[in-house]
């Protein structure tokens, strides 16, 4: 009888409630700056290890040195490196041209393959083949074909970024709900309207996943392409610094790559938030 006593049960509920909500709140992330703590701790440990002489400042320059070098690279136009911002612009230019080229070709091919069996048979085997090709193994071939100028670098980036975007966009187009295609027919949509209103927006969620992977690969291939006989750009700074044994400069260049990579990733996320707002409606229910 004592088990069914309503008073004991009520007491138990009253006690447990605030505890569970508090625990739930902590689990879901807490405050935003909590995510900054571990990187900051790492940075601090790195600095302390350097100043205490635990690691050689030559091999692993402390964050303060890296910062000073960065400031120096930005403010002075040295004969060895040029300026950091100039190198950054060169690298960004390569990424922009290579990526736009690769992305446009990928989307066009995905549409061709996605919309018809003939197109699929013509395009997809080739793209699947390119996908399995070891990308960076192509570098020497590209140099033989296209020389050592801008062209092989841009083409390598284009090829690298085309593949994930193609694969995901193609899968996205094939995954569009066929019933919406029927709807389009009953509404009398033209082929162009069907593409614009049904097929492409339907493939967009997957295409954006591909876009993110593409951007990642584009940056990776930029780093590889630039370290082979470049005469300007971030990769050139790295190969120069390697010769002069200036690890601090290498760290600055790597840092810039990272920041630019994060920026493009953030841009895609922004794009996702804007273009996939209709899905948030589902989550909000």
């Amino acid at each position, binding site marked *: 009888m004592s088990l069914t006593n309503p008073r004991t049960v009520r007491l138990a509920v009253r006690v447990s409630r605030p505890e569970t909500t508090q625990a739930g709140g902590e689990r879901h992330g807490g405050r935003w700056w909590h995510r900054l703590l571990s990187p900051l701790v790492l940075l601090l440990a790195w600095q302390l290890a350097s100043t205490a002489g635990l690691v050689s400042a030559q091999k692993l320059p402390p964050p303060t040195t890296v910062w000073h070098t960065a400031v120096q690279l930005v403010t002075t136009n040295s004969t060895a490196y040029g300026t950091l911002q100039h190198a950054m612009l060169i690298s960004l230019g390569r990424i922009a041209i290579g990526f736009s080229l690769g992305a446009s070709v990928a989307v066009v091919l995905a549409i061709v393959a996605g919309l018809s069996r003939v197109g699929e048979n013509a395009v997809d085997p080739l793209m699947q083949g390119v996908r399995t090709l070891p990308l960076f193994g192509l570098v020497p071939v590209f140099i033989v074909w296209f020389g050592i100028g801008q062209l092989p670098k841009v083409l390598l980036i284009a090829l690298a970024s085309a593949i994930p975007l193609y694969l995901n966009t193609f899968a996205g187009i094939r995954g569009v709900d066929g*019933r*919406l295609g*029927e*709807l*389009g*027919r*009953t*509404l*009398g*949509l033209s082929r162009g*309207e069907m593409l614009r*209103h*049904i097929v492409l*927006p*339907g493939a*967009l969620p997957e295409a954006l996943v591909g876009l993110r992977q593409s951007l990642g690969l584009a940056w990776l291939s930029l780093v590889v392409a630039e370290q082979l006989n470049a005469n300007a750009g971030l990769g050139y700074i790295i190969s120069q610094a390697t010769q002069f044994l200036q690890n601090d400069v290498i760290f600055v260049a790597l840092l810039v790559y990272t920041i630019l990579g994060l920026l493009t990733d953030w841009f895609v996320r922004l794009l996702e938030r804007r273009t996939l*707002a*209709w*899905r948030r*409606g*589902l989550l*909000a*229910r």
Partner: protein
Amino acid sequence: MLDALDLEIGAGEFVAMLGRSGSGKSTLLRAIAGLDDDVEGEVEVSGTVAVAFQDARLVPWKRVLANVRLGLRRPDDAAVARGALEEVGLWGHLDAWPLTLSGGEAQRVSLARGLVREPALLLLDEPFGALDALTRIAMHNLVLGLWERHRPAVLFVTHDVDEALSLADRVLVLSDGRIAHQSRIHLKRPREREHQELVELRLRLLQELDIDTKGATT
């Protein structure tokens, strides 16, 4: 599936088509809508055909208003679409995303999307099959109101005998790809469910549909 089927629907006539699953009613509807290329035969409609599907079939990445405007080719399409949405009682949801709508609301958008095309023939493919009983009744009244104002011919596919009896001018029973039975209902709407004529017809239709009616007559 279909077998030498001949069906004529008068202008502004409300026809309900009953049939068990597999009787060919979906095939017929898809053939009329131009969605089935394998069906041989002729479909003649003097005007446009609009369809409201069972799953409402709204384009999820288009807001409600854009869904209704989709494929509408007239200069005042936005105003017409707004008018239709107001008519189905969704004035406040013009900018809503389809995924946030309830089943009944989505069906009303689907009806508005059909209406703005000013169809000569409106095909309704079990549009209320997935709705709860109360929403269904509201939707019946809405459909009748829209039909009375716009007067399209309606082909209403359902497996609910009572739904057919309360809405249609003519009820067909499709079986094995043929029209196995048809009868006209001359009663005014709204109809009394227990009206003698309807009670008799209900029994008849249930028999045609091969449903055991013993014990279900009270």
